[in-house]
C-alpha cells in the first residue's frame, strides 16, 4: 500500500482554510461579558454553553449560565431540575482559581408573566394573565421562548453589572429549527403586537368613528364567521389590555438587542458536521455581520475525528481493502471488524472535513474549532469538562 495518502487525520482546529477559534483566550478576556451559543436544533447548544461556563468558572471567572431544557440527567448534575427562574450555585466545581458557577433553567411563561407584572398595575396584570389569548401567546407563540431568553439575559446582565455577582453570562438558546429565530423572534413579536390587524381591533376601543370603515366591517364580519364572535371579543379585550404594554415591550427588546451588539458580547455558532446544520450556521454568521453583532466563531460539534493524535491511519477505501484481505485469511478474526469500523469512521471524517472546508472557503474569516463526539452521553460535570477541553482545542 502506498505511503503517500491523503491526510485523513483529525484537524481539531478546523479545516485548513479557517483560523483557529481560541476558546480559552475568549473566556480569559475580562472584557468578554456575554457568550451566546446559537445553532439549529440538537447540535449541542446546551452542552456547549454548560461546558464553556464550567470551564470559565474553573479558570477563575464568576459565571452564570442560562440553560433551556437541558437533558434531565445533566440538569440534575448541575442542580437545576427546578424550574424557578433563579440561578443556583453548581456544586462540585473546582474553585481553586477563585471562580464561581451559578446555573438556571429558563421558565418562559414565568418570565413573560413577570414582565407583564412589572409593566402593568396589579388589576390590569391579573386581567391580562387570565385572558385566553395571553395564555396562547405566552405559551405557544413561535418565538416567545427566544424573546424570553433575551429578556432574561437582559435582566441577569443588568443585575450582574449593578451588583457585581457575575462577570460572565453564558446563554443557551431555545431548540428552534433555525438559529436565526433567536435574532428574529423579538422583532417578530413586536411587529406582530404592532400589526395592522391589532390596530384595527383596537380602533373601536380608541373611539374615533372614522376608523369604522367599510373595510373593518367586512374584516370583522369574516373573522366572526370563521371563529365565532366570542373569540373576537376575547381578542379585543386582550389587545386593549395589552395595548399599554406594547411600548414597554418594544423598548426592552431594543435594549437587549443593543446589548447583543455591544463589544462585551460574543456569539458562538454551534453546528453538527452535517450539511443542514452548517448551512444554518452560514446563514447565521452572515446575519450577525448584517446586524453588527460580534461573532467569536464556529463550533463544529460531535465530529467523527478523534482528538489528540488518534489519526485515522488508513483512508476508508484502504481500510475496506485491508478488511477484505484479513477476512480472506481468517473470517473469524476481530481485526476484520475493527478495520471495518475504522473504514466507517474514516469515511465520516472525510465527509465532515469536506463540509467544514467548504464552510471555511465561503467564510474564511470565521474561526473554527472541531469538537470530537465523546463515546458516551454528556450528563455530568466530568463530561462537561471533557467537552470543555475539546472546545479549547485539547
Amino acid at each position, binding site marked *: 500500500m502506498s505511503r503517500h495518502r491523503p491526510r485523513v487525520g483529525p484537524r481539531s482546529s478546523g479545516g485548513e482554510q479557517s483560523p483557529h477559534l481560541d476558546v480559552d483566550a475568549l473566556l480569559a478576556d475580562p472584557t468578554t461579558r456575554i457568550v451566546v451559543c446559537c445553532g439549529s436544533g440538537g447540535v449541542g447548544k446546551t452542552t456547549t454553553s454548560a461546558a464553556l461556563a464550567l470551564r470559565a468558572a474553573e479558570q477563575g471567572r464568576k459565571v452564570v449560565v442560562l440553560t433551556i431544557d437541558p437533558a434531565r440527567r445533566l440538569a440534575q448534575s448541575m442542580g437545576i431540575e427546578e424550574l424557578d427562574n433563579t440561578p443556583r450555585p453548581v456544586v462540585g466545581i473546582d474553585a481553586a482559581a477563585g471562580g464561581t458557577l451559578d446555573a438556571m433553567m429558563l421558565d418562559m411563561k414565568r418570565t413573560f408573566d413577570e414582565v407583564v407584572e412589572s409593566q402593568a398595575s396589579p388589576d390590569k396584570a391579573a386581567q391580562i394573565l387570565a385572558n385566553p389569548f395571553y395564555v396562547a401567546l405566552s405559551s405557544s407563540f413561535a418565538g416567545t421562548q427566544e424573546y424570553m431568553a433575551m429578556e432574561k439575559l437582559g435582566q441577569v446582565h443588568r443585575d450582574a453589572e449593578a451588583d457585581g455577582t457575575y462577570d460572565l453570562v453564558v446563554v443557551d438558546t431555545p431548540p428552534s429549527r433555525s438559529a436565526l429565530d433567536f435574532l428574529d423572534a423579538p422583532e417578530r413579536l413586536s411587529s406582530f403586537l404592532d400589526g395592522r390587524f391589532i390596530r384595527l381591533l383596537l380602533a373601536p376601543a380608541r373611539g374615533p368613528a372614522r376608523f369604522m370603515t367599510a373595510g373593518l366591517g367586512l374584516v370583522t364580519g369574516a373573522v366572526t364567521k370563521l371563529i365565532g364572535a366570542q373569540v373576537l371579543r376575547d381578542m379585543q379585550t386582550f389587545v386593549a389590555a395589552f395595548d399599554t404594554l406594547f411600548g414597554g415591550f418594544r423598548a426592552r427588546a431594543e435594549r437587549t438587542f443593543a446589548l447583543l451588539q455591544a463589544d462585551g458580547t460574543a456569539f458562538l455558532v454551534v453546528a453538527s458536521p452535517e450539511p443542514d446544520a452548517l448551512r444554518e450556521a452560514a446563514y447565521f454568521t452572515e446575519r450577525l455581520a448584517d446586524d453588527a453583532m460580534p461573532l467569536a466563531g464556529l463550533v463544529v460539534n460531535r465530529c467523527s475525528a478523534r482528538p489528540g493524535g488518534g489519526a485515522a491511519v488508513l483512508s476508508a477505501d484502504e481500510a475496506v481493502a485491508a478488511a477484505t484481505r484479513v477476512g480472506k485469511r481468517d473470517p473469524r478474526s*476481530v481485526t476484520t471488524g475493527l478495520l471495518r469500523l475504522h473504514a466507517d469512521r474514516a469515511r465520516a471524517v472525510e465527509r465532515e472535513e469536506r463540509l467544514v472546508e467548504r464552510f471555511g472557503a465561503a467564510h474564511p474569516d470565521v474561526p473554527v474549532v472541531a469538537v470530537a463526539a465523546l463515546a458516551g452521553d454528556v450528563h455530568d460535570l466530568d463530561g462537561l469538562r471533557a467537552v470543555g477541553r475539546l472546545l479549547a482545542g485539547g
Partner: protein
Amino acid sequence: MSDWPDVRLHVVTGKGGTGKSTVAAALALALAHGGRDVLLCEVEGRQGIARMFDVEPLPYEERRLATGLPGRRGRAGTVHALHVDPESALLEYLALYYHLGRAGRLLDRFGVVDFATTLAPGVRDVLLTGKVFEAAKPGGRRGGGRAYDAVVLDAPPTGRIVQFLGVSSELAGLAKVGPVKHQSDLMMGLFRSEATAVHLTTVLEEMPVQETADGITELRAAGLPVGGVVVDMVRPRDLDDEHLAAAGAGALDPGGVEHDLRAAGLDDEVADGLVDVLLADGRDHAVRRRLEDAQRERLATLGRPTYELPRLAGGVDLGALYELAGLLREQGMS
C-alpha cells in the same frame, strides 16, 4: 406483507433531528410500488423535500417527485410531493368555503392572515392539516384532484404533534363554534381512525428515546393511533458480541491484531500506530453500542413494532433514500 395494510395516512413525528424527514421520504418511496401513488407532504416550510430529492423548491401545489421503489415483480408507483404553507392554505380555504372574494383579499391586506396564523397556532394547524386531510380523506377529493393510495406527512416534532393534529388545541377551547370547529371535528374522525398511523422516529440516545416514550403516552391519551417506532442512524455492527465485550473491557489481544495486519501487508501502517488506533476505535464503539443497547431495551418495553435504519457514513443522498426505503420494506413497514 405490510404491518400497516389499512393505513392511508402515515404521520411521521419524532424529536428534532432524529430523521423525520429522511424516514418520511424513504417511507413514501417504499409505499409507492405496484402502481400505487403516494403523496409526501411537508408542513414546516423548510423545503426539506426539495433538498432531499434535489429538485427546485416546491410550490403550493402537488408535483410529481419521483418513481417509487419497484416491488418484487418490478412494478413501481409514483411519489408526488406537496409543500403546505399556512398563508396559502388560509386563502385557499377562505375562497373554497366562504367564497370570500373581496373580504379574503382584504383579510390578507389587513394582516389578519398573519395574525390568525401566528397568534392562534390552532388555526394554523387546522389549515395545514386540512390540506393534508383533503388529500387523504376517504371517498375521493373535492374538485377532482388526484386520488392517492397513501399520504405520508413529514410532521412537526413530538412535542407539538398532539396539538398539531388538533386534539387538545387551544382552538378547541377558543373556537367553540363556527366552521373551523366543524372542519377540525371532521379531520379528527380520520386522524383517530384505523386509516391513520402516527409513527415516531428516534435515535438510540437518552433524550430522543425519552421523548418517544412521552410522545406515545400523549398520543394514546389523545386517542390518536400510535404506529411504529423507526430507529434511525443505528451504528454498524461489525463486531460480534464476544469481540464487543472484549473491546469494551480493553481485552483485545494487540499481538493478534498486529499479526493479522502484518499478514495483510500493512507493516508500514503498523509502524504508524495502526494497532492502537484500531483498538481505540473498538473501545469507543463498544461504549456506544452499550449505550445503544440500553436504549434499545427501553424501546422494547414500549411494545410498538420497531424498524431500524443504519447510519450511512456517506450521508443521505437520493440513492441512499432508496436504500433506506428498501430496508423499511424488508422489515415490513410498507
